[in-house]
């Protein structure tokens, strides 16, 4: 049996569902939505029963401007309050030139950008007291002049920082669809011994572009890719992210069961 098992992204709207859903082994929370001083009571209760891991979305670790360490300190405080063994953010940037994108944007896959990311991750690791992991994002645009593939970029990142990886299979699928990357090559190039856990989410096609909405059911192709990943590694955990258009509990339970089946648990 895996260390974490099957999890779901904790959201206010899913609060009651998560408490009564069968087969939830752990949850992940968006760190920016919490304050270490006053965690929601239901989360405090959940924490007695299962791991609760904080996931950040605003550190902008791929950003070339100086790291906003106050945000890292907030993540560290939330991780400590949750007694979490691992905290995370994404391989992306969200702020530059005084503007805030509000969503994860890709960084150039160049040596220069990797150096910046590595420096920011090392600084983050010196502030956060637990293990730190980084997640691959879904991109609809690409920077010119890439020097590395995404799997090479992620591999070097883990080698140089000792960080772990969250592999988002839906993001991998989105990039395959939208950017034409080869998901099997990606899976072949990932250092699986660094895997923290796997993210799964639903999406929808709109105007010829696959959108990773977290508001639709997980599509069969993404479940197939999870099975493909499972041929290479038994993931420590698999987490379903649902952020909008929340379905009835029975549908969520069915989605969780489908994840469990895909990883043969």
């Amino acid at each position, binding site marked *: 049996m895996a260390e974490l098992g099957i999890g779901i992204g904790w959201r206010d709207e899913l609060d009651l569902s998560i408490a009564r859903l069968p087969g939830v082994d752990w949850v992940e929370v968006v760190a920016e939505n919490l304050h270490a001083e006053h965690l929601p009571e239901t989360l405090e209760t959940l924490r007695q029963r299962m791991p609760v891991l904080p996931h950040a979305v605003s550190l902008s670790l791929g950003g070339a401007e100086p790291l906003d360490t106050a945000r890292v300190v907030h993540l560290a405080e939330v991780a400590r309050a949750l007694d979490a063994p691992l905290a995370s953010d994404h391989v992306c940037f969200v*702020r530059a030139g005084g503007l805030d994108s509000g969503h994860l944007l890709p960084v150039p896959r160049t040596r220069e950008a990797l150096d*910046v990311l590595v420096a920011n991750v090392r600084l983050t690791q010196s502030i956060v007291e637990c293990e730190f992991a980084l997640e691959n994002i879904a991109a609809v645009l690409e920077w010119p002049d890439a020097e590395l593939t995404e799997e090479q970029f992620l591999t070097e990142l883990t080698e140089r920082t000792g960080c772990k990886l969250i592999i988002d299979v839906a993001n991998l699928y989105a990039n395959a669809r939208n950017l034409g990357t080869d998901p099997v090559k990606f899976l072949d190039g990932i250092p699986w011994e660094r895997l923290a856990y796997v993210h799964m989410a639903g999406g929808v096609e709109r105007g010829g572009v696959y959108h990773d909405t977290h508001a639709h059911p997980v599509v069969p192709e993404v479940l197939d890719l999870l099975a493909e990943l499972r041929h290479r590694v038994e993931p420590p955990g698999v987490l379903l992210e649902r952020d909008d258009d929340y379905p009835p509990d029975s549908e969520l339970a069915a989605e969780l069961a489908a994840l469990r089946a895909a990883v043969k648990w």
Partner: protein
Amino acid sequence: MVSREDLASRQAELLHALLARGPVPAGFDEARLHVEADVLRRKRTRLIAYLRPDLEEALGDRFAPLFAEFTAGQPKTDTIRTHAYADEFTTWLVDRGDLPRPKRRFPWRR
């Protein structure tokens, strides 16, 4: 060799193109840039609607296009919180006459 400063300015240029209808940075696919800009706008539109259901209720179908116009001219900066940004949108709507000027419920507050 590109410096960290150069990368910072290229990232700023990209954000400016995506959020404030700035020029397409060299080497980027213009069609993809529009798709990404649309993704960012949708995401923020939903967040503002979530925080301020009163605005979406008052504006109906005009909510999304009006927010798109507002945010392109006045993109969210990294120092303003989302609630305050929603307030700026409200002020912009009132100033244009798209929303009635609110009655002052708290006369001791200016």
